[in-house]
């Protein structure tokens, strides 16, 4: 089976053609770099996304956060629910871990801004 997709690895947005056999990419074309090949392979077998959102402090101030690495695409809303359930204590710095294991993905949620 042939699948066409657009790489989200960078703003170029290469049009990829992926030959898929039993849920795995056997060949990738149209990519400009290794990121595209890796994206296509992951996208056909187990797609992942970075998730960014805001957690809140006790007095309701939003603190921007992200998943340290991409999480499975079907876990995005679970990860968001986990982020909504925590209270961030100040001060917080870029890279501070806010959640150690978001929604059972094993992925950390880290702060992306510093507030005192």
């Amino acid at each position, binding site marked *: 089976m042939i699948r066409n*997709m*657009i*790489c*989200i*690895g*960078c*703003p170029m*947005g290469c049009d990829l053609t992926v030959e898929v056999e039993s849920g795995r990419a056997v060949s990738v074309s149209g990519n400009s770099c290794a990121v595209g090949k890796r994206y296509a392979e992951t996208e056909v077998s187990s797609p992942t*996304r*970075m*998730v*960014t*959102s*805001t957690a*809140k402090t006790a007095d*309701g*101030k*939003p603190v*921007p956060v*992200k998943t340290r690495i991409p999480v499975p*695409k079907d876990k*995005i*809303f679970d990860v*968001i629910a986990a982020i909504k359930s925590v209270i961030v204590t100040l001060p917080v710095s*870029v890279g501070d871990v806010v959640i150690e294991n978001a929604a059972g993905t094993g992925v950390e949620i880290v702060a*992306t*801004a*510093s507030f005192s």
Partner: protein
Amino acid sequence: MDKHSLVVIGGGPAGMAAAIAAKKDGIDDIVIYERDAQLGGILNQCIHNGFGLHTFKEELTGPEYAERFSKQVISLGIKYETGSMVLSISRDKEITVVSRENGLRTVQADAVVLAMGCRERPRGALNIPGTRPQGIYTAGTAQKLVNCEGWVPGREIVILGSGDIGLIMARRMTLEGVRVKLVAELMPYSGGLKRNIVQCLDDYGIPLRLSHTVIDVKGKRKLEGVTIAEVDSGGKPIQGTEEYYPCDTLLLSCGLIPENELTLGAGVTINSVTNGPFVDDTLQTDVPGIFACGNVLHVHDLVDFVSEESGRAGHNAADYIKNNGCKANSAKIVTVCVGNGVRYTVPSTIDVGNASENIHLRFRVRGVYKGSAIVVRSGEHELLRKKKKIMVPSEMEDVIIKPGLLEDVSEISVAIEEGTV
């Protein structure tokens, strides 16, 4: 009156990169005026990732990208004043600035870097028919409310315009539990990056309707819904294609306009295509000692290119200051003309006498061009040709010209040669 070697107006990515470059070039007396409470500019509300691939070889969120630069500003000891709004700049580089701490002051600068960024095209500039109820926001305003104030406007929304901020907000609002019914785009192509169509719309099943626009707004006090219709190639609504979408919020992502009121006040000439100043290859405007960079000069897609460009502006401003405002032997100015398919170029002139480094020519195309080439010519003589698989108006093009190519040239043109590849 206080005096400074360099005054940078705006503490966003452009202003910070310019100040850092000038400082590294040995200019010590620099001040950045920023009207917000912190450095970083619009990056602070852009909490999504995708910034920094060129600059740092990794994907950062907006606040992380901003902090990389603000930490440098602080560690280099560059003076910055937040909560300080510049009200005017004179042709002689006298700057009037107001702040809570210092009241109203006038300072004299040897050189100025304009880095005020851009603002969104508001409803009033879009000629959308209908009533004027509460519930209509620009996408960036909604972004600030959600990401910085923690307040989500609306439960059911429609987005007009497929600029990147609109696409990013379609995803952001969806993740906040809001129902995003559709994104309507007047043009037959998207105004945003392809990756954002995929990861912000397709991932969440949000429809993008090209060649569609809002033709009516319903609701007296509070927005009740909008009517969307298809438009023909002239932008005129096609009868019989109207569809009504109940919604409590309409977000507008319909383009960005460089914020050049201060620039105009300084007597700088503005390019009516970019709404930014005309600059030469050193990013100097037609008022000596006033430089411009980032989105105040022309709207960029990527902050990485803003940082790179602004570093050059800071470097050139430093040279100007070191030479006491006198240019070394420049005599040879090459004019850059726009040819077929090119909307504008930055710069619009090149000072070949002084150009030592490779010259970046940045521009946008007028439409979608597949399998075409960018051709730079002097008269009939071809100086440079760059093949492109696809060019779209939403993505800025960048060609690099070696100054040696321009030695015996007074005018060059940049054009798209269609379907030649």
